[in-house]
């Protein structure tokens, strides 16, 4: 029942943020620190679980005899998307939505840059068939 522990952890953190933030307007930065700490601890836990999931996917892919380079690219794209979303939500919670949307834009550009070799390979294959 780990999900119950996660929810309890999140609720405690939310209550502490409300407690610290409502006291004084000049210590709102502390609520950001607590929010950052909660999110980072959550992400540490999630990254450990995701490591297991990725290992399973890799084993499946090696059984299908797919080129492992392509699976690498796909997993990297997934990782960039998750981390860009994580950074965007943090900035939006702190009130800096402009910085957050630039993080999202940077994530999209980097995903395109990483998948460029795949696009080249596909175009070459199509051109070789013609």
């Amino acid at each position, binding site marked *: 029942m*780990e999900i119950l*522990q*996660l929810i309890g*952890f999140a609720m*405690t*953190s939310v209550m*502490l943020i409300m*407690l*610290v933030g409502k*006291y*004084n307007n*000049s*210590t709102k*930065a*502390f*609520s950001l*620190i*607590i929010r*950052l*700490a*909660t999110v*980072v*601890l*959550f*992400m*540490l*836990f999630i*990254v*450990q679980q*995701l*490591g297991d999931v*990725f290992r399973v996917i*890799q084993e499946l892919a090696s059984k299908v005899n797919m080129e492992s380079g392509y699976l*690498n690219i796909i*997993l*990297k794209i997934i*990782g960039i998307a998750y*981390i860009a979303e994580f950074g965007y939500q943090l900035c939006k919670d702190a009130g800096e939505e402009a910085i957050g949307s630039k993080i999202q834009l940077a994530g999209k550009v980097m995903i395109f840059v990483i998948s460029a070799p795949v696009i080249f390979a596909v175009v070459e294959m199509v051109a070789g068939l013609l």
Partner: protein
Amino acid sequence: MFNMSGLDLMVIFKLAGIGLGTTLINQLLKKTDAGEWVFYTTTMGIIFGLLIVLQYVLQFFEAVQTMFTF
């Protein structure tokens, strides 16, 4: 209960304690007419809290790097 499967609850309580302690010190200073020190104590508290969080952020970056460079 405070250390469940990688989630460390004591750190969150420590950070909240630092925040509340800084607020207390600020109100004490306001009562005894030393208002210009409020800014410095708040900044010191924020820097202290950030140092504690920084260690966890570094751990997170390391975990992400080892996961994405098989």
